[in-house]
């Protein structure tokens, strides 16, 4: 499988990365080189093989459903580039 410039544009949009028109040809060829190399996996018969979900056989741990942390809004927003009164500031989302 390979990608064309339209697909690159679409992936960039999905990934929320602005990509300029001038960058499209380079990205197209780089992504295709990687995808072409990955094609090699097609040689492997994976019928009746279960996909791996955990490398270490272990049971999912359970813990008590209790609050272990919180009530620290100041620390949560301390690294925000824009915040006000412990709220994150974003451009207007709802008209």
């Amino acid at each position: 499988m390979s990608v064309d410039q339209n697909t690159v544009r679409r992936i960039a949009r999905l990934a929320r990365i602005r990509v300029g028109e001038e960058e499209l040809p380079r990205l197209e060829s780089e992504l295709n080189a990687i995808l072409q190399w990955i094609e090699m996996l097609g040689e492997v018969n994976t019928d009746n093989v279960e996909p791996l979900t955990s490398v270490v056989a272990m049971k999912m741990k359970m813990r008590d459903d209790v609050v272990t942390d919180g009530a620290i809004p100041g620390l949560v927003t301390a690294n925000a580039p824009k915040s006000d009164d412990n709220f994150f500031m974003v451009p207007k989302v709802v008209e």
Partner: protein
Amino acid sequence: MTELTRLTIAEARDALASKKASATELTNAYLSNMEKARPLNAYVVETPEQARDMAKASDARLAKGEAGALEGIPLGIKDLFATKGVHTQACSHVLDGFKPPYESTVTANLYRDGAVMLGKLNMDEFAMGSSNETSYYGNVINPWRRKGSNAALVPGGSSGGSAAAVAAELCAGATATDTGGSIRQPAAFTGTVGIKPTYGRCSRWGVIAFASSLDQAGPIARDVRDAAILLKSMASVDAKDTTSVDIPVPDYEKALTGDIRGLRVGIPKEYRPDGISAEISRLWDQGAEWLKKRGAEVVEVSLPHTKYALPAYYIVAPAEASSNLARYDGVRYGLRVDGDDITSLYENSRAEGFGREVKRRIMIGTYVLSAGYYDAYYVKAQKIRTLIKRDFDEAWKKVDVILTPATPSPAFAPGEITDPVQMYLNDIFTVTVNMAGLPGIAVPAGLSADGLPLGLQLIGKPFDEETLFRVAHVMEQDAGFTARADKWW
């Protein structure tokens, strides 16, 4: 004073215990080395004040006879580990100014045992790279150079700062992480020892996530004993990481018995691809010979899906990365580049904040997870992962440990490899270990014809780091690797 930085962690521990040196003297010696070694660009941030405070506290505990296992030992910390109140950016522009209000479990464990932090170490951005050329803070330069040459070489990656700092005596040991080879490959390129423990051995809490099913923390150290000492402190079960495993952490140093009689060592035939360098091939044979002479039995094994591990990795790792890195949105932390609306704020911040390699991987990951391609790519890769793990499970029926080369070549020059796929091939011998969640250790075993370090890798059964340390220790003795980089900086 500079003599102090020659000491291994084990030697420094003895010097501190017998009052031949103080923790403050030791820390100051390293701080002075760091200052002189800035051309290597191994540290992105030095924290001398904090280091001196920590050393002073260590001296107080030493005086009271309350020394921890790493009391007063100065360490460098990879920039991927969250360190409370200290620069933590995974060497990315997108995390500009980020200072976490919490400490990673691994570094907290090290401090609990008395370790001193010297600063944050350079790395490939978000641990994506094999040459430390993708850092927002510039390349790390390998302390090693080719015989008779002044040309700069890469230290490997992504833990390039960790490896260079250990090799150049800018710390007694360093934390590192390994998703596809990021501990073992730079260790091999710098003549240091690096171990990636079994997935789940160290807590990932506070380690900035790249590919969560592959990431593991581990140490880079001067020798096998030091790596054993460091891993003992770093490893723990942790309620904050449900994938950390509740198995007691052994005293790894006790495993260094020097006795490997009767041990079965596997040599995987698939690790000798066409075009492997004759030097590396010879070193590998030599390694097997050393172990045989010590009474181990060397057996050929087959890991038939080896060649598919790397392409499968380049589906799984970018897929997980695209999801993990979705959090960098310009709102909660780091770089914000404003836009007309919320979407353009995201798009602008991420376009400016991420470097080329990171963007490439996020886009590959986004593509392979997108509607219509998920089964063909992601599920297929996870199935191949099952086959890779099965190969190892079969091998463990015949052998206790597997010996392979660590890298297909010695260190190369910055800018020498520009094709992404060529760069990815650096991890050809290490990536299978991550895909199967196994422990692997790189040990310096010899020098190339032009005088550069070459490493061998030992792969172990899950949670059998003790056997890895035991065999690595024997190999280290027989290799007698004492060469050091000439101090040109």
